[in-house]
């Protein structure tokens, strides 16, 4: 057992050295009205890795990942400053189409949110259909491959025409993952994807996250430190709108540089 | 923002702007066509009591009074009934029946006003109100409000107020009931825990908490009654002269318009009918504006729409 785990760790490490960065965040600040919630964030995220964001409630984790796909600006009075470079191009540059960015950087939310008035099938294909894709054969292929990637195909292949809301919570969340994958993103952002789920469903999603990194870069926000250590190659610890420490997961959990991090992971937080 | 997005916003904003535009149109278009009458009669348009097409004198004081008085009668009758009905439905009736009976009462609101008017004209006034009013006249005619020199017909101010009361009761009781439903159950329980009886809980906790809702229902009911045309036209007797007695035929702004628009020949007559409409618009606008200010603070979910 031990040996297998060590081997896995080694692999994780190797992978991350092989991959280049896909996202670089420079001097990112974000506000809700006058409330300054992200303060000078700098981080670079490697491709084909799982990066976890941990930190106490309200520290700005959700806000941070919502800045990565330009969802933050949809909140009334919300504001962003700084750069987010995706493959070297600043997504906040004038002339960049936010919808284009959102297709390249997909997102899965804390509470499963399938479109309740659409079938399982239409949910998966919503992103494509609403952008004008009509090729039936291609759509059917995407449907199957995305549901398979989300480990959901076997469970729903006979229920494709049922409402998305009729699935169980865990199935709904995997449906949302399949839906996000269908638009072929490069990066998948996940905001506490398991917090509304039971342990079995959580295990399934964790397994899925690890398998996804072969094709995608995953950034996952979590409250659960065991989860971070199980799935993530890298982990960032946030506190009061700042990134306190960012390192390989094993390093951050076993030998943190900062005292704040240590206090947080050992549960000695005031 | 991409062009495409801007267009969506412009598109929806353009449609939405129709709404303030429509409100402005009411005042501007109707106001413009009333101008002639206002210029000719000045303030006496509102304060004078003569409406005489052959002599081209048009004044609407009796109609303004008729509008306010008939609506006030309607409120006076409808308010206690609506509150009582809302109490029955929300406090005494089991929840299942309450929703069902509530729906039935709300269906009353869907009955077209011309059908109310017809029923009032052919059934309610001759078979019910007329005998009652006759009795009042015989026995209480020393009260000026109930006096009458000649016989009465039943088609008068009092009757139209009663029919209006029946018509505004559904909306008033729905608004009351909705605001009673919002009273937190913790408040009721707290009152019971202090040893209050049911009637005390209702009076203090429920009605006390829902005062705003009741006020809103008064404004809404009054607003509806002010503008109601068909039922009033069919029942009020349409007399052009002013009378202190509620048992005498009378007229409201709305019924005046309904009766006179066809006979309005010549610029000044047409302008005067439109000016009566402008007067009604202003009165109902004031009432509604006040109602909305109150209602906005309480976020009803639509019972006002029925």
């Amino acid at each position, binding site marked *: 057992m031990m040996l297998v785990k060590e081997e896995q760790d080694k692999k994780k490490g190797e992978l991350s050295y092989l991959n280049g960065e896909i996202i670089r965040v420079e001097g990112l600040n974000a506000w809700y009205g006058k409330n300054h919630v992200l303060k000078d964030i700098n981080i670079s995220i490697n491709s084909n890795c799982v990066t976890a964001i941990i930190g106490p409630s309200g520290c700005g984790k959700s806000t941070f990942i919502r800045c990565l796909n330009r969802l933050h600006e949809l909140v009334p009075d919300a504001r962003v400053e700084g750069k987010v470079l995706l493959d070297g191009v600043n997504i906040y540059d004038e002339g960049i189409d936010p919808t284009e960015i959102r297709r390249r950087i997909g997102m899965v939310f804390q509470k499963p949110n399938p479109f309740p008035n659409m079938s399982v099938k239409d949910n998966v294909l919503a992103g494509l259909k609403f952008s004008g894709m009509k090729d039936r054969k291609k759509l059917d292929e995407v449907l199957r491959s995305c549901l398979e990637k989300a480990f959901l195909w076997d469970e729903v292949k006979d229920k494709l025409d049922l409402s998305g809301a009729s699935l169980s919570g865990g199935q709904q969340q995997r449906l949302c993952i399949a839906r996000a994958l269908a638009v072929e993103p490069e990066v998948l952002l996940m905001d506490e994807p398991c917090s509304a789920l039971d342990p079995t469903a959580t295990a399934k999603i964790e397994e899925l996250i690890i398998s996804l990194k072969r094709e995608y870069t995953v950034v996952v926000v979590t409250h659960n430190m065991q989860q971070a250590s199980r799935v993530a190659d890298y982990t960032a610890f946030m506190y009061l709108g700042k990134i306190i420490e960012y390192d390989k997961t094993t390093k951050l959990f076993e030998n943190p540089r900062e005292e704040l991090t240590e206090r947080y992971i050992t549960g000695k937080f005031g | 923002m991409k062009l495409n997005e801007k267009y969506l916003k412009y598109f929806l904003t353009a449609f939405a702007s129709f709404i303030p535009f429509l409100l402005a149109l009411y005042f501007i278009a109707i106001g413009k066509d009333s101008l002639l009458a206002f210029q000719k009669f000045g303030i006496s348009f509102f304060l004078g009591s003569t409406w005489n097409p052959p002599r081209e004198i048009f004044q609407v004081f009796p109609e303004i009074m008729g509008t306010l008085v008939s609506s006030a009668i309607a409120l006076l009758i409808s308010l206690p009934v609506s509150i009582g009905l809302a109490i029955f439905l929300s406090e005494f009736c089991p929840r299942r029946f309450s929703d069902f009976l509530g729906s039935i009462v709300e269906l009353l609101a*869907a009955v077209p006003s011309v059908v109310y008017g017809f029923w009032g004209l052919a059934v309610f006034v001759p078979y019910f109100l007329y005998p009652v009013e006759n009795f009042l006249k015989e026995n209480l005619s020393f009260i000026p409000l109930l006096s009458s020199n000649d016989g009465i017909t039943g088609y008068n101010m009092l009757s139209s107020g009663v029919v209006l009361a029946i018509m505004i009761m559904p909306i008033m009781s729905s608004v009351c009931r909705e605001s009673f439903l919002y009273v937190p159950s913790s408040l009721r329980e707290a009152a019971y825990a202090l040893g209050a009886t049911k009637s005390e809980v209702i009076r203090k906790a429920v009605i006390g908490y829902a005062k705003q809702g009741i006020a809103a229902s008064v404004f809404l009911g009054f607003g509806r009654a002010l503008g109601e045309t068909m039922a009033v036209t069919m029942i009020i007797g349409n007399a052009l002269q002013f009378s202190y007695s509620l048992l005498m035929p009378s007229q409201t702004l709305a019924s005046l318009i309904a009766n006179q628009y066809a006979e309005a020949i010549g610029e000044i007559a047409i302008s005067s009918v439109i000016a009566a409409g402008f007067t009604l618009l202003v009165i109902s606008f004031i009432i509604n504006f006040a109602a909305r200010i109150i209602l906005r603070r309480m976020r009803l979910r639509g019972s006002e729409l029925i």
Partner: protein
Amino acid sequence: MIKRKIYDKLFLFFSVAAFLVAVVPLFSIIAYVVSNGLSVINLSFLTEDPSATGVGGGIANSIVGSFVTVAIASLVGIPIGIAAGAYISEFRSERYSRVVRFVSDVLLGVPSIVTGILVYSLVVLSLHTFSALAGGIALGLIMVPIVTITTAESMAFVPNSIREAAYALGIRRIRVVAIVISNAKGGILSGILLALARASGETAPLLMTALGSQLPFSGLLKPVNTLTLFIFNSATSGNPPLVSQAWGASLVLLLIVLGISLGVRFIAKGRYRYL
């Protein structure tokens, strides 16, 4: 203590009495309309135009007129109402959106006869004729605030997570709005039906726009009769055969209007009970 108990009983008595006072008129109206109307309604009453003498014949022209005016009203009221409601709900953070919402509430309270006067002065006077078109426009203006408010309310009821899910898929805002509308369609449909029921039952704004007519329906730019105008004119005619025809027309109208209202309740199933 005894006094308090008596008070309790009095309250119960008072509220039951109020309930009876409220429902007795409903049953009376329905009973009279049904019993007087049923004997009048037959196939020729529904399918024939009024006879040239003015008495006898049927109400076909009024039924057609009601449908035509309500159809025109729908063309005016439904698109404007849905678009304005979508604006109010989807741009609700903007100040102007709150202004529009407030004004639609105020419009809801404008007496319908005043709408008739507006259309009279804008449409009838400029076309120099009373017409089905003018009547339809007047009813449409009455529908606008009802459809607007119900659309805005039911779209605002759609959880934000649906919008975020759509945006996160890179779906454009115009499509996101379409998704929200489709999620709110039960409530929007209820609102449309409610507005249709209201428009079908209106009389006052038609007096000085559609005017009414004895003749068969003969075009949008001609005066037209509707069920409600027929009921009003016949009921007040003092002519017994016409009055009994008015009962028949009332029954037809009541079936249409209450049918639509029951449809609202059926579609809405409680959640949009009031809409």
